[in-house]
C-alpha cells in the first residue's frame, strides 16, 4: 500500500525515527521501547535517511524535523510528526515563535500526517489532518517549553502507536490568515520598535528566540546587542 502500512503491526513494527534537535532526540529512547516496535533506527540527517531501504520499514516518525520529506518519501512510506499549534495560521513554519509573539500561552501539540501537495504552502503537513492531541503550555523560557515538548511528544507518539492501525484522522479548520515562517533577520528589533513595545511583548519576543534559535537582538551603527535570556515580573495589583 503506497503511503500507508504494508505489514502486520502487532509487535512487529519497523520504524525510522528522524530527529536532530536535543529535545527531540530525548524522545527516541521512549518510542523504541513501545511494545509494537520490533525494530527501530534513528536518523539525524537526510543523508542517513537516504541510505535506508524504505520498503523495509512500516513508519517514519519525525520529531522537530525542519526539512520537507518530499513526495519521493511520502509516496513510499507512512510518515508522521508532531506539530505544536492549534490554529491553521501557524501551519507555515516557526509555530512556536509566532504563537508566543502573538501572545498565545496555551496551544495544542498534535500528531500530523506527512503528505505532499506542491500547491500547498503549509509546512510539512500539506494537509490539515491530525490524529492525537494534548495541551501545550507556551509560558516560560524556551528550555521549559522544549522540555515540555519532549514529554508531550513521548505521550503523543506512544498513543499513536497504541492505536495503530486504527487511526482516526481529524481535520483542523482552515483559516485564511497566514503567519509566515520567520527568518533570522526577523530576530532584529530596532531601538524604535523596542520603545513601542511593552515589557510583556518584549519578553515574548526575546524568550521565543532563546537558544537554540537565532537570538533576538537590537542593532545600532556600532554593534549588535543579543538578548539571550530574559525574565518577566508582572506587577501584582
Amino acid at each position, binding site marked *: 500500500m503506497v503511503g500507508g502500512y504494508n505489514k502486520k503491526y502487532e509487535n512487529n513494527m519497523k520504524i525510522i525515527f528522524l530527529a536532530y534537535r536535543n529535545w527531540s532526540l530525548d524522545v527516541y529512547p521512549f518510542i523504541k521501547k513501545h511494545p509494537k516496535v520490533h525494530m527501530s533506527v534513528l536518523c539525524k540527517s537526510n543523508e542517513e535517511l537516504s541510505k535506508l531501504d524504505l520498503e523495509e520499514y512500516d513508519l517514519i516518525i519525525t520529531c522537530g524535523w525542519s526539512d520537507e520529506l518530499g513526495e519521493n518519501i511520502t509516496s513510499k512510506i507512512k510518515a508522521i510528526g508532531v506539530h505544536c499549534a492549534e490554529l491553521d495560521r501557524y501551519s507555515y513554519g516557526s509555530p512556536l515563535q509566532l504563537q508566543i509573539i502573538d501572545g498565545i500561552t496555551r496551544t495544542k501539540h498534535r500528531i500530523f500526517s506527512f503528505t505532499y501537495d506542491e500547491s500547498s504552502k503549509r509546512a510539512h503537513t500539506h494537509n490539515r489532518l491530525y490524529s492525537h492531541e494534548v495541551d501545550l503550555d507556551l509560558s516560560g523560557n524556551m528550555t521549559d517549553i522544549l522540555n515540555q515538548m519532549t514529554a508531550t511528544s513521548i505521550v503523543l507518539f506512544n498513543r499513536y502507536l497504541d492505536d495503530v492501525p486504527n487511526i482516526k484522522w481529524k481535520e483542523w479548520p482552515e483559516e485564511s490568515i497566514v503567519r509566515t515562517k520567520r527568518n533570522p533577520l526577523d530576530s532584529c528589533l530596532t*531601538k524604535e520598535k*523596542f*520603545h513601542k513595545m*511593552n*515589557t*510583556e511583548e*518584549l*519578553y515574548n519576543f*526575546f524568550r521565543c528566540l532563546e537558544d537554540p534559535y537565532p537570538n533576538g537582538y*537590537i*542593532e*545600532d*551603527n*556600532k*554593534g*549588535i*546587542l*543579543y*538578548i*539571550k*535570556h*530574559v*525574565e*518577566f*515580573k*508582572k*506587577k501584582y495589583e
Partner: protein
Amino acid sequence: MGKIYFNVIEKHKKVNVKKIITTLEEYKSYENNPLSDVDLILFIGWSWIIPESFTESNICLGIHPSDLPYYRGGSPLQNQIIDGMIESKISLITLSNKLDAGDIWLKKDFSLVGDSMEKVFENLIQSSIKLLNDFFNIYPNIKPETQDITKGSYFRGRRPEESKISLNDFKSMSLFEIYNFIRCLTDPYPNAYIEDEDGNKLVFKNITYVSSKNN
C-alpha cells in the same frame, strides 16, 4: 571562590596556612581573641567589617578589584564596567579602619571583559592567583606604598533599585553602554531591568555584544 585561593596559597613553599575561616560565626569567635603566631591574615571576598582588634595586632591584607586609589568603596566592579573600563588592576592592600584606603603592596592586571559576572569573576580569580603567588615570592622583601586618597575616586555601594534602566536611558545610551550596564548586573547581583508604565518588569539575565568592527 575562597576555596580556590586556599588551594593555590597553601601550595606556595613559603606559606604555612594556620587557619582557614569560612563562616561569620567562626570569625566572630576570634574577634576578642585575635590569632597569634601568624605573619599575615588574608581576607578574600570578605564582606564583613574587620574589627580593630584584628587590624592592630596582625597585618591584615585584602584584594580590591581596582587600580587604587581609583574606584575605592562599594561596587568597584560595577562602577568600572559602567564607566566603560575594559582593562583594570587588582590591588593587594593593608586592611584598615578606612575603607579601601590602606597601604598598597602589589598590583596586577585584571580584565573586565566578559558577558557575565561569572566570567569577570574567573578573570578576577586568575589575576588574584598571580598576584598572591608574586607577593609570596617576594615576601618579606616588599614594602607597601602609602595610598594617596586625595587622588582617585570613591563610590558608595550600588542599591538594587539602581539596576533599573529607564526607557529614556535606554533611548539615550549606546548599545555598548547598555551591554555594560546589563552584564555587570548579571547574577549574583540584582539584575538589570526595564519597567513599563504598568509596573511590569523585563529582567535581563544573559546577553552578549558584537561590535560592528568584528563583523
